[in-house]
């Protein structure tokens, strides 16, 4: 019995390592499915982007300073989440949490800008029900915004866990997946920036 216990303790770190790498692999595959989700929304948008049905088109609605600011903020937050990962590799919990806080604040600023952009457009009478183009616009950009918002809640939960437990194999994996998710949303935004906004104002 004593031997069994010793064996059990001996196995723990090994099992944990396996478990965590399994979860990371699953998360990668989840991101594949999320890619398909966005791909379907992009395809929808591309089909409908000219279907303005007499309503306003992209170049009448999109304001360059607004979406450029959003882009820079989100790209910077991706960079700071990278700095968080570096701090984690150095084993510096404080710096890790600090960089995650910066990342989350930038994310929140991005969401704030997006909400005000949407509010302005609705104020000008360009709602989701105005035309097929606007339905596709709000759905595509809004789905990305929803992803970022959920990411903020998730990141906050992980920060609390880091503060309580420090860097363990489990929290390490959690930081890894949330930053992976964050970078993914950044990549999606680059496509949004190009396909929706740049092609919209050109």
């Amino acid at each position, binding site marked *: 019995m004593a031997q069994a216990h010793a064996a059990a303790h001996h196995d723990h770190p090994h099992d944990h390592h396996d478990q965590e790498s399994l979860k990371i*692999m699953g998360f990668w595959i989840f991101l594949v499915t999320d890619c398909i989700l966005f791909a*379907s929304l992009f395809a929808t948008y591309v089909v409908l982007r000219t279907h303005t049905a007499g309503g306003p088109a992209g170049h009448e609605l999109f304001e360059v300073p607004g979406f450029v600011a959003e882009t820079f903020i989100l790209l910077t937050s991706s960079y700071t989440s990278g700095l968080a990962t570096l701090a984690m590799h150095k084993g510096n919990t404080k710096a890790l949490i600090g960089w995650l806080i910066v990342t989350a604040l930038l994310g929140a600023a991005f969401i704030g800008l997006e909400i005000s952009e949407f509010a302005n457009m609705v104020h000008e009478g360009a709602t989701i029900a105005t035309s097929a183009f606007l339905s596709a616009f709000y759905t595509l950009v809004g789905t990305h915004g929803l992803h970022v918002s959920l990411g903020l809640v998730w990141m906050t939960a992980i920060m609390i866990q880091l503060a309580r437990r420090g860097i363990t194999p489990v929290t390490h994996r*959690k930081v890894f997946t949330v930053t992976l998710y964050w970078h993914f949303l950044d990549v999606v935004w680059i496509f949004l920036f190009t396909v929706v906004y740049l092609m919209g104002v050109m």
Partner: protein
Amino acid sequence: MEMFEEIKSFASTFFVTGDPLIYGADVAIVMTMLAIVFVLTYYKKWGWLWREWLTTVDHKKIGIMYLIASLLMLFRGGVDALLMRLQLAMPDVHFLHSEHYNAIFTTHGTIMILFMAMPMMFALFNIVVPLQIGARDVAYPFLNALSFWLFFFGAMLFNLSFVIGGSPDSGWLAYPPLSELSSSPGVGQNFYIWGIQISGIGSLATGINFLVTILKMRAPGMKLMQMPLFSWSVLSSCVMIIFAFPILTVTLALLFIDRFTGAHFFTLDGGGNPMMYVNLIWMWGHPEVYIVVIPAFGIYSEIVSTFSKKTIFGYKSMVFSMMIISVLSFFTWVHHFFTMGAGADVNTFFAISTMAIGIPTGVKVFNWLFTMFRGRIQMKQPMLWTLAFIPCFVVGGATGVMLAVAPADYQYHNSYFLIAHFHQVLIGGVVFGYLAGIYYWWPKMFGFKLDERLGKWGFWFWNIGFYVCFMPQYALGFMGMTRRVYTYGWDMGWAPLNFVSTVGAFLMGIGFIFQVWQIAYSIKHGERDLTGDPWNGRTLEWSIPSPAPLYNFAVLPQVNSMDAWWEKKQQMQQGEVKQEPVKLEPIHMPKNSAIPFVMSFFWFIAGFGFTFLWVWMAVAGLIGVGICLLVRSFQYDTDYYISVDEIRRTEKALGRAV
């Protein structure tokens, strides 16, 4: 008084009223629920239900729950089918109203594919895959339980439309503009969207779960090209799930946004494009039919090999065929609507890609035949269904190739020829396959075989019934009968064949009754499986006791070849296996959790709120979901170890020397 009137008018729209059939069903549902509550309370089984089933993360139990749910859904979808056949048995029948008929063909299709075929497939994934690859569980047991409960509550939400609010009635794929608010203002369509959406999240998670399980958790030494073909078929199916299901999620979400916010994705005004929905839904829908049929191919491969006492013929070509089909499946969707008029070049591409699917499928049929060639074939139940499948599927495939000829399809499109074709591949391919699989692995699930005599009665009723039901429908299609007509006149000349078809449908119904009887009979009298290897099997699941212990394998098997268990048995016979002393180690297992059940229940609340557009309820449900996710995130004590002593006790009780 006014309040009373308000409540009355609310209740008359909230509850489905006016049809004696539905009142009868209401009574039956309430009685069944009362009976269940009474039995659970009388035998003091609530705690048992909660601990052993509702909170379980054991893949074997989850598989059994999938199986039970799918058989119930088979019953409901089957009753729908029989009602339709009764309505069509003779000309000018007014047994069902046209609206009621619309609702029934819609729910029949949706239930049979999404709430019968999918869960029956997941039942077999869960029960078989970990045992077959020598694993102790799936990669993510918690997620697996969540998948099941999402499916379950999604299915319940969909079925609730039968008694509350009204059923969806715009066809099993809900094409707009018919499914838009302008043409379907009721809540039925919302039930459809949210029932499928919620269970769809579960299906997607299952796809990820089993892909990782198969890639990462195979027994030591088992190479991919030594893996049993059923596991290969699951891998192929999971790849398709991962790429196809997000498209379904988006499609249904867009339809709901149209209905909820007045957006214009698929409307006729505001720049919307209904055909885009048809494209999107079939980009999921076509892979979906291969998602359900490929695992059936895997089952046939296992059974043919076991009951012919031969290694499968052309193993590698089997693997390649399945993987090729899973890729090609994403390039055939337009053949569902050649008549859209996408142009000759587009239609040609999709006609050729569709016909190309016939090649790998044909390879598989020949491989099954060659496996049987000069084999010692045993006519057990699983083999019977497999043998019935081959001619049935070949005819179904051939009519499929006929439909794939784009110009000819303008003639067949949406006729009963099409109905006969897809029922032939879905019943002859998918249902026969899953039934074969259930007969084959039943002893592994429950520790006894299903009675042969009753099973054969069921088998012959099903098979004869199938041909009597669907062969006339090919002819009816050529005679001009289109799908979804709820009645027809004497002058059409369709009466005799329709009557024959209805007789066939009821023969299949009798077959199902025999199977229910067979299960009930076998629970008491079925032949017990004491060896764990009742069919003299070839793969690892037969090397352990039936039913398998919680941890499946006391010691993980070492695999060096295909058909690992068969090889080992051969070596044991020749005395080549030395009895090495096995070293037991504590086994790492996940703890049970209530979160999957509770979280899925909150999804159900949210779905119900969205259905009735009660935003407060939807938001409350979603907050509940969020809280469940956070609670799970903060849980660290999620697993435990089974001690060596306990493993030894369990194995001894199962009659295994360790």
